[in-house]
């Protein structure tokens, strides 16, 4: 009953024209609603407050969004400042001792109302970026009530780009307005069509109760947009494939060295990747503890060398303690490294616990940008760049440095290499260390998109071996191309066949491919390869 009364009161407010209803009594019901324990009431209160024109509205709603709005048992509202003091929400007067308060909580419905409400209010913010975001929020949550505000904002908007976005938001709202004229609606449809994108399509598709002409125009616009979207979809799939490929590549490059170059069937490769991911976690923990928050974004760049060194040192230790006794017995390295992977997994479980660790993505790496219909998430973009960087650095080391030459010589004929004066133990250790270190760096990248858990490595080991073999063992280029090809095939198949079937198909294709090219995509040719 109480709720009903409240709704009636609010309706009164809503129908009240957009003129400033500044009378104290005007916003009181809205404020009372905010102090309710029912999310519906709060949402209605937010909507009411947003259009009330009350000068304190923005502050109150902002506080609510930021989790700084508190209610007292008598429905009085208070805003907590950053310093912990409270002000009376309705008046802005400091409240020395507000008594027992309870935080006003929000749910999705309230959040939506807040977005819409604050959107309207922020249309006039001094900062162009804020205005643009406000326009976008209104576009996403079209609300006819915001049209007057939009009109005013459009009239006074100096920035052309922001203005367009406001017009788009207005068009979206017009289509929702019951009494809009047909001409206005048609114009709105045209605006949306010109904007394009999934959101516009969604708005157009979701229209109901439109005059026939408008419905017709909307349908035409939807199918036009669909065509665009389909094209973009291919591009998008290719991008996903590329980015999956880069992840596979990162996971596999270390293996391309320990396995491809050295011939060690390295079952502990995945654990090296995992160590890299945990190194990232530790770096972030340390950053949180000892480094000013402003520099937190550096945690990932710092983690890369750390992971390289940590995994590299572990790799060197493994080589010295274990692998070096097994040269000439490549298949037995499988047994030993499998044992090792069990040990490393359990060690991490003992030290860090069995559950996932939280590695977060610094602000500069999160989010996405839109290029036409192509959505590019930043973390994936960086991972691709990183993978390419690692690949080229590694190729340079192997091809251009004396160390690289010695690595290859040692793995091809250890006895002869030693007779040529190459310090084989040293080169062996460095090679394995390098491979492990690179795997560790892959762990940094993977920590950004996957679980950081003791099982992390297990998830990638099979794929890594497949990539290396698909590309052709001992060929870094092959590994790179193999990773990308597998990634792209996977991503084009996934939408068609579903993720599970898609994966099966990829595996079967791989098996068939190897029948055609028994030594991978880029086989070593000639007498040398036929042992």
């Amino acid at each position, binding site marked *: 009953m109480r709720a009903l009364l409240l709704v009636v009161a609010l309706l009164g407010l809503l129908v009240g024209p957009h003129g400033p209803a500044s009378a104290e009594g005007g916003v009181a019901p809205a404020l009372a609603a905010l102090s309710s324990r029912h999310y519906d009431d709060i949402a209605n209160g937010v909507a009411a407050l947003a259009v009330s024109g009350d000068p304190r509205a923005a502050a109150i709603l902002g506080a609510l969004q930021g989790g700084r709005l508190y209610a007292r048992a008598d429905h009085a509202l208070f805003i907590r400042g950053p310093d912990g003091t409270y002000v009376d929400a309705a008046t802005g007067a400091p409240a020395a001792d507000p008594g027992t308060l309870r935080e006003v909580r929000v749910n999705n419905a309230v959040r939506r109302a807040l977005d819409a409400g604050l959107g309207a209010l922020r249309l006039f913010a001094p900062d162009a970026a804020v205005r643009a975001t406000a326009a976008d929020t209104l576009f996403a949550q079209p609300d006819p009530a915001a049209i007057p505000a939009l009109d005013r904002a459009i009239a006074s908007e100096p920035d052309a780009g922001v203005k367009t976005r406001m017009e788009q938001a207005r068009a979206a709202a017009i289509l929702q307005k019951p009494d809009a004229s047909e001409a206005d609606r048609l114009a709105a449809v045209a605006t949306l069509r010109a904007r394009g994108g999934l959101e516009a399509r969604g708005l157009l598709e979701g229209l109901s109760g439109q005059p026939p002409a408008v419905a017709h125009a909307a349908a035409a616009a939807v199918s036009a947009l669909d065509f665009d979207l389909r094209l973009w979809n291919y591009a998008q799939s290719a991008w996903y494939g590329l980015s999956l490929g880069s992840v596979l590549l990162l996971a596999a490059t270390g293996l391309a060295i320990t396995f491809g170059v050295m011939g060690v069937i390295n079952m502990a490769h995945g654990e090296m990747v995992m160590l890299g991911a945990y190194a990232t976690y530790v770096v972030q923990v340390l950053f949180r503890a000892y480094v000013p928050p402003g520099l937190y974004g550096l945690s990932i760049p710092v983690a890369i060398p750390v992971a390289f060194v940590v995994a590299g040192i572990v790799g060197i230790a493994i080589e010295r303690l274990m692998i070096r006794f097994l040269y000439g017995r490549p298949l037995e390295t499988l047994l030993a490294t499998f044992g090792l992977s069990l040990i490393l997994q359990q060690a991490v479980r003992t030290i860090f616990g069995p559950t996932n660790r939280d590695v977060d993505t610094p602000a500069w790496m999160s989010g996405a940008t839109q290029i036409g219909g192509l959505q590019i998430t930043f973390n994936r973009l960086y991972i691709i760049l990183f993978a390419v960087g690692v690949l080229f650095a590694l190729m340079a080391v192997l091809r251009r440095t004396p160390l690289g030459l010695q690595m290859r010589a040692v793995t091809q004929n250890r006895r002869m290499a030693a007779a040529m004066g190459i310090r084989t133990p040293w080169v062996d250790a460095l090679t394995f260390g390098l491979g492990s270190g690179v795997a560790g760096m892959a762990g940094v990248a993977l920590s950004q998109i996957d679980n950081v858990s003791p099982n992390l490595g297990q998830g990638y080991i*099979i794929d890594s071996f497949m990539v290396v073999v698909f590309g052709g063992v001992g060929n870094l280029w092959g590994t790179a191309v193999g990773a990308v090809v597998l990634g792209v095939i996977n991503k084009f198949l996934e939408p068609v066949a579903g993720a599970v079937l898609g994966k099966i198909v990829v595996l079967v294709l791989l098996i068939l491919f190897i029948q055609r090219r028994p030594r991978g995509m880029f086989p070593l040719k000639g007498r040398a390869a036929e042992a």
Partner: protein
Amino acid sequence: MSPAPRALAVPLAVPVIVTGTAVLVAALALGGVAPAYIVSLYGKYLCYGILALAVDLVWGFGGILSLGHAAFFALGGYAMGMYLMRQIGPRGVYGDPLLPDFMVFLNWHALPWYWHGFSHFPFALVMVMLVPGLLALVFGYLAFRSRVSGVYLSIITQALTYALLLAFFRNDMGFGGNNGLTDFKDILGFNIESGRTRAALLVATGVVLSLQYVLARAVTRSRFGKVLIAVRDAESRTRFLGYRPESYKLVIWVLSAVMAGIGGALYVPQIGIINPGEFAPTNSIEAVIWVAVGGRGTLAGPILGAVLVNFAKTLLTGTLPEAWLYALGFLFVFVTLVMPKGLMGLVRMRRRDDVPGAAAAASAAKEATG
């Protein structure tokens, strides 16, 4: 060219030990002397022994490192599981006379075609061998014909088992998805839970393993076996002698797959469940590990390795639940570093050393005097 008595003694030793221990364990358990649970436990070890023997045939003698052999084991297991499912009849929870429970609750209306026939034991038995054998035949034919070898082969066997894993996980495949086939009631009319059935299964496993051992021994000792070893170490050279390595590999590969399938078929009734987890690549890798621990290229070694590693696993997961992976991991590392030829290597090494060593000493003596 070892003297006749030894040649006779050795092939008998393993079958006698395997069958003997199986009978012993079964008898002790039936007599109430030993806990009943060791029957199916030992049965499981012996089934793994079969798998290990199969892996060793292709790896130790044919040089084919299969990282997907558990797939054949699992396929044999599924064939047996399907038989056992069909034996449930109307005793399932939904009381459906035809459909297994998982089909009922996923709204299947008819038995898929590939389930027909499995209610007959002989048919199932044929399938136990035929399905892994056929898959191995097709896969092996393609791979060996196009000369896929080494790690390339290993990795595609892994891809094979991984693909099967994913496929069997799919509920739509009609094999019970992740939950697999379970809740078996009886086999050949005997209650699968009764101690006697268990004992019989254990003894049967022991006998089958022994037979397989004898067969494997005969094959590897034959001229075929020698060609196979030649193929393992110098495949292209055998071609110039007129041998077709691909057909040799194919024969041993299919034989091994069938053996593994039979192992899987014996495994399922003793374990009581078959699910896609058996296709997991790590299972295949573990089988390779047993072989390596026991001694690659020997026939008794893999069996020993399978039993011991799994015994260690049973023991450690119970007594050191939090640290057993360390223990097992160190065990593997230790075995590789200290016993390069596996457990059997210890035995073998001594024998090998005194044979050619003695010969060399003798010839040295001759040279010195001559």
